[in-house]
């Protein structure tokens, strides 16, 4: 499976309605993206930004990302190395933002069967989630093809580059790096 569309790491489990103010606090929005990311989720999990490791998976309940349209909510998770978000449902704007940034955000009806610290692997293209700790695995609703394409190339910017830009998609763009 492609590195851009997979994740393998520990699960960080949250409840319902994790909002954009805890993901990217408004009063810190003037900070550079990397600095803002160090405050991601600190209001409810102070250790998150320090302890999260690349490839870790955020698991949540309903309406993940509700609130503001601020893209920094998804940017912060991506900058911290979160490999995927698995939730019962998403706020629409957050969900679009995440995919636009190349951060897989998938709906998993059995999200509550994943516990804090479980080792989880996600294959976005195949729509497969494995809980290596419990041995359970799930086939989840796949992303529509046009969104899978956006996630596979690393987000909307690389996608726009390949479709509209005069420059071909660069290697840097394919890593999903975004300015601002």
């Amino acid at each position: 499976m492609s590195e851009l569309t997979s994740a393998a790491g520990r699960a960080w489990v949250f409840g319902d309605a994790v909002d954009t103010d805890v993901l990217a606090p408004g009063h810190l929005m003037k900070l550079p993206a990397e600095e803002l990311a160090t405050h991601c989720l600190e209001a409810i999990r102070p250790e998150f930004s320090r302890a999260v490791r690349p490839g870790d998976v955020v698991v949540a309940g309903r309406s993940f990302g509700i609130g503001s349209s601020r893209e920094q909510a998804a940017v912060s998770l991506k900058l911290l190395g979160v490999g995927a978000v698995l939730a019962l449902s998403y706020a629409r704007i957050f969900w679009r933002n995440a995919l636009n940034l190349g951060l897989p955000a998938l709906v998993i009806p059995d999200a509550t069967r994943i516990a804090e610290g479980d080792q989880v692997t996600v294959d976005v293209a195949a729509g497969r989630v494995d809980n290596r700790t419990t041995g359970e695995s799930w086939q989840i609703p796949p992303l529509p093809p046009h969104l899978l394409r956006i996630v596979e190339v690393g987000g909307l910017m690389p996608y726009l580059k390949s479709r509209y830009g005069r420059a071909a998609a660069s290697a840097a763009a394919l890593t999903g790096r975004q300015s601002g």
Partner: protein
Amino acid sequence: MGLTLAEKIIARAAGTVSVAPGDLVTVRVDLAMAHDSSGPRRWRPRLEELGAGLWDPERVVIVSDHYVPAVDLASAEILQGVRKFVADYGVRHFYDMQGICHVILPEHGHLKPGMLVAGGDSHSPTGGAFGCYMAGFGATDMLGIVVTGETWMDVPHTIRVDWNGAFTSGVTAKDIMLFLCRALGMDNASRVIEYGGSTIEAMEMEQRMVLCNMAAELGADTGIIAPDAKTLAHIRAHGGEVEDDALDWRSDEDARYLGRHAFDAAALAPQVAAPHSPANSAPAVDHAGIRIDQAYIGACVGAKLDDLTMAAEILRGRKIAPGVRLLVAPASTMVTRAASETGVLGALLEAGAVLLPSGCGACAGMGAGLLADGDVCISTTNRNFKGRMGNPGASVYLASPYSVAAAAVAGHIVDPREMLAERAGRA
């Protein structure tokens, strides 16, 4: 099978005659709006990277409302960047420090029925009060829209919410929304809330905007209200051009709704949402007695002329309680001027209010009026998530302008109808 208003607009924008919920379509956008936080500062580097311009600068509206006025070097630079952007990219519709984007658009006649509008802010559903399909998008999504003039949508279901009957004194559209956040919950993605019924027909446009604005708190894709004579009159009075046949933008009799809800406005009491969720609402009397440090009248949802006028109904001839700070940030400079002319502004200031600049301000956790650890605030804004107004250790209660003004006078949360009744008794 008939179509809902939202489906008709999406079908038209997709260049087809009919769509159904769940369809994936590409739509042409009629208008794109963004502000100083989500727009130019995020777009310019990406546009330069793409070597692209705006698809149609005439269809782009830029409003500086989040970092206004500049309070430090970072905000000054952000605002300067916006001014440079509109000059470089040929954006003529630019409103610099004149108010909050969701209020600016209708103040300048930009919205009309049947339009599909993309807004770079989550409270973009406000535009639905004018019979548009207007939804919020993040910065990269908006970038894609302003480059191509189009975006993808999964056609949402429509939920019909009817309110019938007349409000009792002291009850407002805001109370409807705080009630609905509790009744319908906040997990309504892929749904549009279509409001109707005699209560909504009787409402002026500014109250209808409250209903659509807080469709965002329901988690809905947007809110929408079919246009009527009031809609067209408002558009025309604000410089917009609209034909009478715009009234044809309405749901078919046999449109299919995912759900229908009907409520009695006469039975609704003033509502207050406790920390840290708009859905954590209850009748104001249930929170009566909770001491407050700050009362905030501001934001797109709660500081239009109509909102300030309600607050003045309570505050005229009264003083705010000792130790309470009452902050008022009118939603636009046009609102400030109008409130000055009607005497509303004077009533607020006489009562002890401090006047703040027009902008998103403390509601977005950015401007003047942020809270300290342990502060308790009652606010006319739309969100009270943890840390929303600056400090995660602060408590924010959401309420109508009547309830916020009444709490400022009492020093604690009260049912505002008590003070309105006193006034009526004296008169």
